[in-house]
């Protein structure tokens, strides 16, 4: 675990430095940033957009945004990968919603998201706060946990969740709201 931490800290520090240099319009840094992060960000846009071509176009827009906005990243506020991944998820959701199509069936080629525990592999992303959230999610009832995780990973709304799980909208809302309240208690505890 200690080695994992050291590696994670070093990777995070390196990524921070590369992102800061990208913010100074350093193209070499941008290239390195792309090679370090594109697989993660493409994984995000691919899952949410649901097809490779759209995921590619959205990823293009994501990296243009990163190039323009890297100077605005504040190191103390969010980790570099959080900042980058959030841009990718938000852009992909914007794209998905602009289609005006509700996606409620699972993607044919979308890999399952690993269950907590087995997926928290070593790497630049492992952190105390992520373990805490994942443990707290683990403490929820399965329906609550599933709904919250699906909303995050598929980028879908209450209405889409309800259709996907074939339950009334009100039922879905109360599952999620109870789950979020319990999650809050756990995170505060």
């Amino acid at each position, binding site marked *: 675990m200690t080695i994992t931490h050291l590696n994670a800290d070093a990777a995070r520090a390196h990524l921070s430095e590369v992102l800061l240099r990208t913010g100074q319009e350093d193209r070499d840094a941008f290239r390195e940033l792309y090679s370090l992060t594109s697989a993660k960000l493409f994984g995000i846009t691919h*899952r949410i957009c649901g097809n490779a071509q759209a995921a590619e176009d959205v990823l293009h827009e994501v990296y*243009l945004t990163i190039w323009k906005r890297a100077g605005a990243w504040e190191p103390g506020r969010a980790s570099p990968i959080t900042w980058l991944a959030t841009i990718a998820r938000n852009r992909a959701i914007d794209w998905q919603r*602009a289609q005006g199509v509700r996606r409620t069936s699972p993607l044919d080629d979308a890999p399952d998201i690993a269950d907590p525990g087995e997926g928290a592999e070593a790497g630049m992303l492992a952190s105390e706060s992520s373990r805490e959230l994942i443990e707290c999610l683990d403490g929820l009832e399965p329906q609550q946990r599933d709904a919250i995780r699906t*909303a995050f990973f598929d980028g*879908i709304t209450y209405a889409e969740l309800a259709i996907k799980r074939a339950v009334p909208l009100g039922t879905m809302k109360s599952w999620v709201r109870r789950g*979020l309240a319990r999650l809050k208690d756990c995170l505060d505890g």
Partner: protein
Amino acid sequence: MADPDTIPEDVAAAELALGLLDGEERGAALRRVLAEPGFAARVEWWRLRFAALFDLWPEHAAPPHLAARIEASLDGPTSAKASRFAWPALAAITSAIAASLLLFVMVRPEPTVPVSQPIPVARATSVLVAMLGDAKSPVAAVYDPANGALRVAAGPGVPDARVAQLWVIGGDGVPHSLGLLSSRPTALAPKGVDRGRIAPGATLAISVEPLGGSPTGLPTGPVVATGVVARV
């Protein structure tokens, strides 16, 4: 339809942070972000908490040709990208509203500026518009990504010693100031960072602030108008 008052603040903040809301519920939550800095802070807290789940997101190698395509487009607007990167299915009604808004702004320019030059049709496809407020007294905003100019119709009336301030709320759910409005049409030039935030689907909002604008960097006064950015 649960009464929003019965939902604990933290649950409401988490719903917005997670992206569960749509339509009017999302609009109401965004207005609350603008009106209540404390609520905005809770949304941000949740957003960072949920970001922990990015750790679990499986990687997927991007196509090898994409790196070169992206790098080739760093220097500016790329027509190749614009044509490939169409956002095809904006609801027809949105486009119709947007188009009529563009017209509205074009035929109601600043009185001092003669309008003899119609905007070329080709340009119109890249322009973004938003209509803030209700149909009776809308405040139209037109943004041209090509030159970064954001033109806003005359702002809403505000009490003495107050000023209307324009905000953009993008995917991060956090309001970012775009500048102050006046009782006359205003041309703003948002900073580079904020230009990126004025994208289809983002919300523009106007709040009433002390002279000089919000002292906190977030809206402190009532939100008097909001609207969603759409591509014409």
